[in-house]
């Protein structure tokens, strides 16, 4: 689903450029640029009409309905999923869905739990991230707006002060591109900073994934908007903010003939400066951020 945007744009681009190549060879350079921009914005607006950045809470049955005529394994898995989870909240498949899902799930969690110690803790972590970025040579103004906006959102979901917002307001803000994108970008900065800071740890994963250096990976796959997130991103974000994340995998793989089970993976933040991010001994922590992963896309899951 995430790929839709890119592949569509690619196809359109090819179609658009192949025609003028014949006669207006010299002109297509400029023609093409504008055309691509237009195509992309057209596709984007089309997409946004279909799904908002963050959707409404839907019962899990809507997910089952989506696969009604699909793979029986998936239907079986959704049934299994239904034993633990009750609702799903879809996010837009624009390449930022992991960060967007994380943003909404986390802010919603704070809004509901009013967990002030958690807010204080994450604020300290955000300060750490700020220092990390500074030490990595980022100019302050390039990231401080994004940090400021996230902290602002964090404050406002706490009910104690007069700027606090309701659940509806949180949803509205999350659907407002200017706010939503800023927070997504904040997470991207945090992720990039964490990966660079611990480049020795992440290097082998990144090299195995993309054959790129840590620097290249951050520049091409973390910091630009719309770049999809993978294991590396999730690990880095979870570690940097100290927020555990559970990712439930919904795909067509089946383990054995006996029955279907839904795999999940918990990203438990490393404590202290342990080089190993996912420490086996901390399985007791139960992540309150639960995301449903279908190949290429993340949505938010709500337990029963």
């Amino acid at each position, binding site marked *: 689903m995430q790929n839709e945007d890119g592949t569509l744009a690619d196809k359109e681009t090819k179609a658009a450029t192949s025609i003028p190549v014949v006669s207006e060879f010299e002109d297509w350079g400029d023609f093409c640029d504008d055309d691509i921009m237009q195509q992309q914005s057209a596709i984007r607006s089309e997409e946004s009409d279909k799904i908002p950045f963050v959707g409404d809470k839907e019962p899990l049955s809507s997910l089952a309905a989506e696969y009604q005529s699909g793979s029986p394994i998936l239907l079986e898995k959704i049934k299994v999923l239904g034993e633990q989870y009750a609702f799903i909240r879809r996010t837009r498949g624009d390449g930022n869905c992991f960060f967007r899902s994380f943003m909404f799930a986390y802010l919603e969690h704070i809004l509901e739990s009013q967990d002030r110690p958690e807010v204080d803790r994450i604020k300290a972590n955000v300060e750490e991230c700020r220092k990390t970025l500074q030490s990595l040579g980022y*100019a302050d*103004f*390039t990231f401080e*707006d994004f940090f400021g906006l996230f902290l602002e959102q964090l404050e406002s979901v706490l009910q104690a002060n007069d700027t606090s917002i309701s659940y509806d307001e949180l949803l509205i803000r999350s659907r407002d591109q200017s706010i939503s994108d800023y927070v997504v970008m904040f997470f991207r900065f945090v992720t990039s900073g964490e990966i660079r800071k611990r480049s020795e740890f992440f290097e082998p994963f990144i090299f195995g994934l993309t054959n790129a250096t840590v620097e290249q990976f951050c520049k091409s796959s973390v910091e630009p908007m719309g770049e999809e997130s993978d294991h590396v991103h999730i690990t880095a974000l979870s570690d940097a903010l100290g927020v555990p994340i559970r990712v439930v995998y919904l795909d067509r793989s089946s383990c054995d003939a006996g029955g279907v089970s839904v795999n999940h993976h918990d990203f438990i933040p490393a404590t202290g400066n342990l080089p190993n991010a996912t420490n086996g001994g901390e399985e007791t922590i139960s992540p309150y951020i639960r995301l449903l992963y279908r190949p290429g896309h993340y949505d938010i899951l709500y337990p029963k």
Partner: protein
Amino acid sequence: MAQAARLNLRMQKELKLLLTDGPPGASFPLLSPHSDLSSSSLSTIDAQIEGPQGTVYANGIFNIKIQIPERYPFQPPVVTFGTPIYHPNIDNGGRICLDILNLPPKGAWQPSLNISTVLTSIGLLLSEPNPDDGLMCEASREYKYNRQVFDQKARSMTEKFAKAAGSGNGCSIQSIQTDLTPNMMEIRGSDKDLKLEISDFVSSHQKPGGISCKLSLESSSSTRKRDIDGDLNVKSSHHLLLSDNDNLMEAQGKRKGVNGMLNEYNLCSERLHSMRQKLSLGSCGKFQKRDGNDKENVVPEHSPSLLNSQVVSTASQGSSLLPASNCHLSKLHQHQDSKSINGSINMESKKLHQLCQKQPLGGLEPCSITDGGKEKMHVASPRLSPSSSHSNISHGALLDSQSFNHNQRQPHMDSVDEKGSGFADTKCKKLCFIGKKLSLGYKDSCQRGQKNNKENEVPLSNPQSPFGRKGIGKLSLGALTQMKGSNADKSQLLSNISTDISNSLPLGCNEKQQPNQEQCKKDAEMEELPVYESVIVLDSEDSDEERDGSLRAKLSIARKRVVKRIAKA
């Protein structure tokens, strides 16, 4: 907080930092750290960037316009050059081909970048152009293969537009633009006429070729003119490219005609064969003479050239030369005379344009015939040389000629992809009409040309490769060098010394490529450029290549001289 307000805040912070701790070489004349940033509109920033020291842009001050989009920093700033600049990655409109100025997947913009990093990158781009991803074909090619010419052009552009006077630039662009537009209109108009003619008189398919070459000449010579003045403008070359397309299309149309009239063409070329030999032999003696003259840079070399042109005319008059063209030719040379005296190139080339336009259609036939004569010259000389001493080369040439034939069979879509290969295709089509001998000789000469041109690194055996530009670069070089070769060959034919070519050629080139020490030498060289254009008028078959060469200004003046001599043959 609204997005606009947030953006404004960020821009204030960003500008403050730019002003206090901006990238080296960048300045913001309209902003000062003390001015109230919040009150001014921050959606457009005018910056100035110094040309990096040690580059061709050194000491130049380039105006840069930075537009901040609404969704900055999620969208990249729109950065354009306000000052004309000759750079492979910056086009006539000042648009910059730089990855960080575009969003992924095409570009590499990311919201963590900022104006300071963009300006730094642009500074780097000035220091190190990226000709492999060129926006400007001509500049890219020059940068890669003819650095001297590129440096000279870039320097003169910098001198002209980027030194101290930043304000009057827009005007100059406009004036040049208007200057060129009428030409374009005329070209287009006559193109249509010509196409009609093709359908009416297929047998005269050579006519469009002659005319289209002339048409292209009109715009290319005007560019050349500016070039000489150090006034080469982006706009003019843009027009040039347009006219290129016209000619490409023209060439295609022509090819259709050629296909239909294959037999007639063959007949015609056979008829031409007989007189060509006379022609080439007869004229080579004069080449020799002229050669001597050239080296001394004596101004009154025009009288022999006049003679030569008349020799050409009379030689081909055997078939159907009209007095008009004869007159036209001599006129051209007379103009050359007057110009060399006056030293006013502009006047000359304008007259040239008029002449080209005025020339009646009837005059075109002889043009194509004289051109045929040239073809024969190509064939004749190299064909003999392999037998005497270049046996290896002739072997290679056989292979090459096969590849040429193969190329001919390829669909035309390929050639259209690359303007250059389009020309190549045209060329080999024609080669094949005339026969394998010609292509053999042509390729052979290409080989020799490769020998002589050290800048030509790519193997010649694949001119139809995807790297059409490289291929054509070679081809045109080869062809021209071959003309030089044929020149020499003819003289050597008489004396049976053909190995001399490779030795004598580079020598001559070097000598002429050296920077001019004397004004008279400069004059002599300048004066030759229009003649070179007139060559194109004469030549309907090879002109594609030659023009190609001229457009890209790849060829040293020395080679152009050679062409001129050939044309006069």
